[in-house]
């Protein structure tokens, strides 16, 4: 029997790596084959996009390497120049595999940046609304409600259109991708704000916040140092799912022709180009970019679904 008034020696604290391996999240990951496959697919697609300049078989946007006569070569088919193209070529003789790799680069860059932007904006506004409450809360949340009542793509189109009108035409090509990020980001912040606001309202009632208030800490310090780390769990889930949505949103906008300029084709642009040839027999120009987009969005979405379940202790077995 140990004397409770004596100091009992404690076990050594765990290292960061031990914490990760021991965590319930990691355990749930190892038990979900779908998630493992989805994460591997997503990882492969991301690596393919990031490493495109080094691993792509062709440089599709360098006119000097394009064999115009190889246009419309079927996948693995015989080309005019004798080069082989795994996924075939498009009308201009560009290698489809390479354009897809470069295209995913643009899609992923826009998707990640837009989600990051939406996340930062949504978290800040959500924290402010949840912690301060009152009038500020009402104003922010009503704006979010109004925005959520429109489809995100409509908001993005609107913002994109307004930005086009404001930016002089000669600079439009360079700024297009940033305008796109802004438009998609602004159309997605409300989800983050809502969730963060709700969690913040719960957290600010807890006594660890009271303890910090007792010390007279500035509200900004309380919110960023104490509350913020505790509201990030649900945010991570929304971020993953909205990454998939942002990628689709970008593809939709590019498909409609209002997204990235044709000199920097994204997956959506490729699909738009491809659909012109669908009925003339060149199915691969549409099929491969579309399939890549589906694979990318689906795998990211499955990861998000898993994360939501894994972070919910009620669903934990």
């Amino acid at each position, binding site marked *: 029997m140990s004397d*409770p008034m004596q100091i009992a020696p*404690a076990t050594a*604290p765990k290292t960061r790596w031990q914490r990760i391996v021991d965590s319930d999240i990691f355990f749930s990951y190892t038990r979900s084959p779908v998630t493992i496959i989805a994460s591997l697919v997503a990882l492969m697609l991301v690596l393919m996009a990031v490493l495109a300049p080094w691993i792509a078989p062709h440089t599709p946007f360098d006119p000097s390497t394009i064999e115009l006569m190889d246009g419309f070569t079927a996948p693995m088919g015989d080309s005019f120049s004798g080069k082989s193209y795994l996924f075939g070529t498009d009308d201009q003789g560009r290698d489809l595999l390479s354009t897809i790799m470069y295209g995913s680069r643009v899609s992923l860059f826009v998707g990640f940046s837009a989600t990051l932007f939406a996340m930062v904006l949504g978290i800040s506004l959500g924290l402010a609304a949840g912690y301060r409450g009152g009038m500020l809360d009402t104003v922010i949340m009503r704006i979010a409600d109004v925005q959520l009542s429109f489809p995100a793509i409509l908001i993005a189109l609107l913002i994109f259109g307004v930005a086009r009108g404001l930016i002089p035409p000669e600079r439009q090509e360079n700024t297009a991708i940033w305008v796109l990020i802004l438009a998609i980001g602004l159309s997605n912040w409300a989800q983050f704000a809502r969730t963060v606001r709700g969690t913040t309202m719960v957290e600010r009632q*807890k006594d660890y916040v009271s303890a910090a208030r*007792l*010390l*007279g800490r500035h509200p900004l310090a309380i919110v960023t140092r104490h509350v913020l780390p*505790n509201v990030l769990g649900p945010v991570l889930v929304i971020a993953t799912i909205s990454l998939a949505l942002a990628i689709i949103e970008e593809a939709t906008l590019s498909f409609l022709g209002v997204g990235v300029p044709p000199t920097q084709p994204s997956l959506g642009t490729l699909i738009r180009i491809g659909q012109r040839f669908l009925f003339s027999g060149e199915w691969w120009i549409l099929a491969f970019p579309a399939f890549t987009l589906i694979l990318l969005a689906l795998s990211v979405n499955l990861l998000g679904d898993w994360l939501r379940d894994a972070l919910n202790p009620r669903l934990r077995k």
Partner: protein
Amino acid sequence: MSAPILSVRNLVVDFPLRRGNFRALDGVSFDIAPGEVLGVVGESGAGKSMTGSAVIGLLEPPGQITSGEVHLTGQRIDTLPAAELARLRGKRIGMVMQDPLTSLNPLFTVGEQLIETIRQHMPLSEDEARARAISLLEEAGIPRAAERINAYPHQFSGGMRQRVVIALAIAADPELVIADEPTSALDVSVQAQIIKVLKDLCQRRGTAIMLITHDMGVIAQIADRIMVMNAGKVVETGTVANIIKHPQEEYTIRLIASIPTISRTGDAPPAREDQGGASYVEVSHLVRDFDMGATIVDRILRRPANLFRAVNDVSFRIRKGETYGLVGESGSGKSTCARMIAGLIEPTSGSVKVAGQDVWAGSEGARARRRAVQMIFQDPYASLNPRWRVGNIIAEPIRVLGLAQTASEVEDRVADLLRKVRLDPIVMRKFPHEFSGGQRQRIAIARALSSQPEFIVCDEPTSALDVSVQAQVLDLMAELQQEFGLTYLLISHNLAVIRQMATDVGVLHNGVLVESGPVDAIFDHPQAEYTKVLLDAVPDLAAID
């Protein structure tokens, strides 16, 4: 002795978990005779609720009965198919759960719920069932039952709701009632009434009751026999008087010894040298109103706000180095008081002076307050930021108030504080979730001490803890008080804790301080009617003979 109603033999319950098998119950055996009340007592995690769930076949998956037998009046029930077992519940085994807020369906009237239960188990017509429902409610001690049968659960108070739950449990004349912490969510004066209802029912109907609780006092008042459990095993079984007066096992001895009593034990606190001496904390005419929702219409029409006075003209003083205990039931305004004194809620009127400085007087007061006043909160799970390492939690006041200059100086102080609360300094690098409730409360105490306060407001510091852990934390608080000359304001609903720790005590009732004075005088000779009621209602072990 007649054949037992319930007979449990060598019950083993396992939870196959990812980190190996967890044996929640390990060879539990006991009998309950007709009309007998068996009290099952133990600390959290002892397996007492698990025993109840296993008997009625409601184990949470992945829990399962691995071996052992459960017999109800001779019939083996643990092997019955789920559908048959479900028919037993309610019909032959009634249940009373801890939280009366969640055990009734808020969408149906009390009568509808009772009648449904009765007709499910008995061949009665609607009218007969209604008549029976009314008589059950009356039996459970609900006045004007015939009128109140059409009320919804939210129209009843917590204690009344628990009576309805009891009426539901006995609706089909079960042979056995399993009551799992039936009074833990209730105030002490209401608890006394519920205990009486249960006891009367048991005597009148000859129903056997398995009463599961962590509160030895409740068991002592109602049970015939006690079964003490620890870590999934039965430690000891015996009659109430035997277990409490002559516990055999070491665990039981320790458990009984750690239960505080409202009777004076040990030495009275050291007599004050100067009666009336200078007060360190002075609370005068403290008032706090809460706005109970002025709507926008109210504001436009400039209607007077709907105010609720939570704290009404409370005044008391605390001398340096002493402990003032504030007792009261839920809703009495004691937590609001604590928060105003600590500086978290601004008083509507009145003043709080610590060492002569009004802590609510502008930035001057705020600065004095931050240096001198600290607080220990009730729930150690919510008062420590789960995302911060323990070292950072304790260091925060040191850093914010600039009490140490260099990082190594801060670390030295944190290590020192951890040793003061009897924790190994190595735990600095851990997170709060890696500690037990008692250890967390020690960390919270270390944080409170880290700003070198002179006055600590303790809001129910031990009510979330098991009784043996409570004893350790209280001992620690008393030692630290000696060592640093701390002044405490101790808020508690537990009168025994106040008696043990405080020199003076104030009794709060509906926001009014009904009585205030030296603790011995008030406990031995209460003047106010409410104090008498409160003291009478406390189930106390010292009253057992």
